[in-house]
């Protein structure tokens, strides 16, 4: 029988029809738990479609703060007859199945090992609300009410959320509360409330925010000084552009003239978007684009230009499941090879890997500094899970003293001081050379930027030795990059461990949960989270300090593992691949299953029910 769940430890999945307004009710549910101070994560599992198809919303509540996806649905809330068969199947043994009993479930469909919570949502809504436009919406609020009773969610918190959502609209709030009460009362009258798992107030989310990664990237771009954004719509990156527009309109309009201190170009495609970004950066503005895999593929040629002509470029890749159009509404970390090596010829690019909304904010801002410092593309590799789902995060912070690093740019005075300006002259021996911006000086410092080979003074050349010298300088710059990118974060045991876990981005939540589980089993294990490629010395050290390192990532081909091997010249045997590539966020149980294929599984560890 049922053996999962407990106080502040359960998973609820909502099964809805997309385009029916369930999203806001579901978000309210998750947010109410957050406001109760309890760690919670919510994942939208939506179709590549606008209206009428099944969509799911999965909420994990975990008092210990393990917020990666967890297998096993404790409570299924099903309002979609289309997906009901599937939803029945996906509920864990002994779990609860709440559904709209306006249309009762046929006996032959019922699983014996589930507990049914039947509530006539549509009937209740229709009876109590006359305006047909609202019936659908209030149906959703009714189930939120029922859940609040079942899971001990403070009604006042929900009412607070409604008040925040509809400021000054008491009437609307009132109707919503009415719907809420319908649910609460129905639940209390018909079921034993609460269930044996439920939410209980904590202080764990105090001071934190709940925000999606794309919005955080967008705010990061505003604070990071982006003035030009160019983009082309593509799921799951679109909301980065939306967010940038929203916050720029709030924060970057000149109060006196009403004019904009930013320009957003919705380009005709991704090739144009990256072209705009390169043109703007060449001309001294901080500019960026946001896209997903197919966009990165299309940007290949331009990324090679930016690498070779050394133009700062910031690209946010919100990864989705590839290849090709793949599963556009599912998550993966599968553009790593594509982004790292983007373009023909000998090219390598700097990648950043945020794993929380806070880091989306921070790394987006940092990407502009790095791009201008290194004069090369910087790609922020986020993904659908991080980008489009709300996550509990540290609040965003910005040191008012913080100055942008605009990199090596000669102004008119600098030019007057130098005898002869050499655009590609490595005067500081770090591989990074000085650039000038158009319009700087009447007679000095102008040069021709090109994707063809040139000498230290930017003069076109087909001389092989000069070409090779330049290519070697780019390697020197690459080595400098290793010292400038954010170093990894370590989660090491106090005692020496032979096993290391290595992960990055959205794999972090589940990897840390897996680590905790191993430690509980007295397995000594260290962990390192990559924040960037190329890799600093500490990455090498970590790998060589451990007998075996598990590289956990969400793609089929172990892309990060290959890059680690290539960049660090490591024997592949040291690195074991732990992979998930079905488009759903990786779980701790899955990680453990794969790790225990390589090391002895402790007796007590039940990877099923972590």
């Amino acid at each position, binding site marked *: 029988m049922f053996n999962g769940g407990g106080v502040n430890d359960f998973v609820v999945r909502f099964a809805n029809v997309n385009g029916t307004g369930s999203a806001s009710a579901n978000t309210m549910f998750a947010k109410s738990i957050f406001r109760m101070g309890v760690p919670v994560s919510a994942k939208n599992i939506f179709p590549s479609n606008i209206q009428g198809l099944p969509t799911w919303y999965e909420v994990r509540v975990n008092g210990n703060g393990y917020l990666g996806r967890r297998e096993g649905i404790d409570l299924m809330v099903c309002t979609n007859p289309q997906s009901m068969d599937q939803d029945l199947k996906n509920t864990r043994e002994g779990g609860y199945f709440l559904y709209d009993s306006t249309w009762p479930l046929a006996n032959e469909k019922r699983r014996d090992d589930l507990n049914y919570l039947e509530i006539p949502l549509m009937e209740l809504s229709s009876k109590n609300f006359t305006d047909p436009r609202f019936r659908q919406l209030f149906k959703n609020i009714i189930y939120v009410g029922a859940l609040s009773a079942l899971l001990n969610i403070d009604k006042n918190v929900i009412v607070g959320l409604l008040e925040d959502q509809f400021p000054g609209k008491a009437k609307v709030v009132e109707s919503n509360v009415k719907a809420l009460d319908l649910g609460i009362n129905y639940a209390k009258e018909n079921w034993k409330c609460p269930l044996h798992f439920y939410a209980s107030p904590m202080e764990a989310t105090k001071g*934190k*925010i*709940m*925000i999606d990664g794309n919005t955080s990237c967008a*705010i990061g771009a*505003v*604070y990071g000084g982006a*003035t*030009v954004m*160019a983009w082309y719509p593509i799921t799951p990156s679109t909301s980065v552009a939306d967010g940038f527009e929203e*916050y720029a309109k*709030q*924060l970057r309009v*000149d109060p006196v003239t*009403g*004019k*904009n*201190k930013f*320009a957003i*170009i919705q*380009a*005709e495609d991704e*090739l*144009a*978007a*990256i*072209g*705009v*970004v*390169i*043109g*703007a*950066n*060449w*001309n*001294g*503005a901080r500019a960026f684009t946001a896209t997903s895999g197919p966009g990165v593929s299309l940007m290949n*040629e*331009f990324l090679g*230009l930016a690498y070779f002509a050394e133009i700062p470029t910031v690209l946010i890749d919100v990864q989705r499941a590839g290849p090709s159009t793949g599963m556009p509404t599912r998550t993966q970390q599968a553009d790593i090879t594509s982004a790292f090596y983007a373009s023909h010829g000998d090219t390598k690019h700097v990648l950043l890997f945020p794993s929380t909304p806070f880091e989306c904010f921070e790394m987006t801002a940092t990407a502009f500094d790095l791009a201008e410092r290194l004069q090369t593309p910087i790609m922020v590799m986020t993904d659908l899970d991080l980008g489009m789902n709300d996550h509990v995060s540290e609040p*965003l912070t*910005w040191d*008012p003293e*913080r*100055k*942008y690093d605009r990199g090596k740019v000669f102004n008119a005075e600098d030019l007057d001081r130098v005898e002869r300006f050499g655009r590609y002259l490595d005067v500081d021996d770090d591989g990074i050379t000085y650039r000038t*911006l*158009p*319009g*700087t*000086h*009447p007679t000095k410092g*102008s*040069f*021709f*930027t*090109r*994707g063809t080979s040139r000498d230290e003074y930017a*003069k076109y*050349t087909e001389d092989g030795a000069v070409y090779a010298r330049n290519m070697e300088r780019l390697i020197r710059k690459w080595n400098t990059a290793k010292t400038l990118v954010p170093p990894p974060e370590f989660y090491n045991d106090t005692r020496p461990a032979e096993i290391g876990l290595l992960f990055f981005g959205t794999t972090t939540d589940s990897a840390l949960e897996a680590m905790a589980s191993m430690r509980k089993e007295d397995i000594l294990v260290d962990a390192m989270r990559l924040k960037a490629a190329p890799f600093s010395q500490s990455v090498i050290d970590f790998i060589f300090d451990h007998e075996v390192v598990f590289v956990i990532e969400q793609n089929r081909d172990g892309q990060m593992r290959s890059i680690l091997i290539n960049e660090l010249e490591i024997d592949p045997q040291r690195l074991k691949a732990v992979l998930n590539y079905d488009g759903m966020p990786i779980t701790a149980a899955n990680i453990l299953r794969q790790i225990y294929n390589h090391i002895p599984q402790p007796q007590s560890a039940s990877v099923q029910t972590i």
Partner: protein
Amino acid sequence: MSYKRPAFRHPAAATNELGFHQKDYEGAMSTLCAGCGHDSISAAIIQACFELSIPPHRIAKISGIGCSSKTPTYFLSNSHGFNSVHGRMPSVATGAVMANKSLTYIGVSGDGDTASIGMGQFAHVVRRNLNMLYVVMNNGCYGLTKGQDSATADVGSMGKAGVATMFSSIDLAGLALELGAGFVARSFSGDKDQLIPLIKAGISHDGFALIDVLSPCVTFNNTTTSTKSYTYVRDHMETTSIADYVPEKSEITASVAPGETKVIEMHDGSVIRLSSLASGWDPADRLSAKNAIYNANKKGEVLTGLLYVNADQPEVHRILNTVDVPLNELKEDQLVPDADALESINASFM
């Protein structure tokens, strides 16, 4: 390339209003084929910029890839230049213009660069009404890859390869008009007198200005059977009018008989004076320009001159309502919102 023009100064070294010599607008020695039309266009750009008295370093030159796209090396050495990738100059130019509205932008492209691989970006830079002069050096072929037909080659035209073009040709001026361009002109590399005032007018135009310049490829497409040859264009050139560019400061002296002349005021106060107007054509009427092009093409004529101008279409900075100071000059104090802002953002996500 590695050759420098001898740095001697013309004997009667005239200076412009800013005190610059023509020399200050020149570029490196050309490495194009002797006689290539593109070199004449470079010369016209040099002359126009000199006469307009634009400080050379306040101009930015952007191009794609091709013989034509190489030319920015051969003019305006004191300007920054960007030889980007094939067919994508319009997007790079868009970024550059967005970053700094205070410079003058000259984009150079070829017919391959614009009408084939660059067709999409071309259409959209027109639509965006980017504030730039866009010069197509149109030779009906891909010069740099050795003379294949381009999409502007006319049906039946035959270059050095000896095979007549079979697909219908794209008229870039007609296309720009269809796409809503506010300044459309056509000219001929061999007609400096016509070309220079058009370049000046195009630079002065506040918005996107296209000049489609027929520019014979002497190496691959200058045969007697080519409609983009020097001789063919010279012999079949028709003009809509004679255009004269009059800078802001000059007074307009009506030396041409009235009725035949049309005066167009540009945003920067300068004026284009058109005389000897073709009949049935009105530079301010898009449809008349489209019809004139269509009819000329049908007769195998090459219609040149200013084809259409509308000085009032808002360019992209006006559309996007950007601040007056160039975006690339904004510093932290202008860009970073104040501390409270982040607090209230955080609060909105609690």
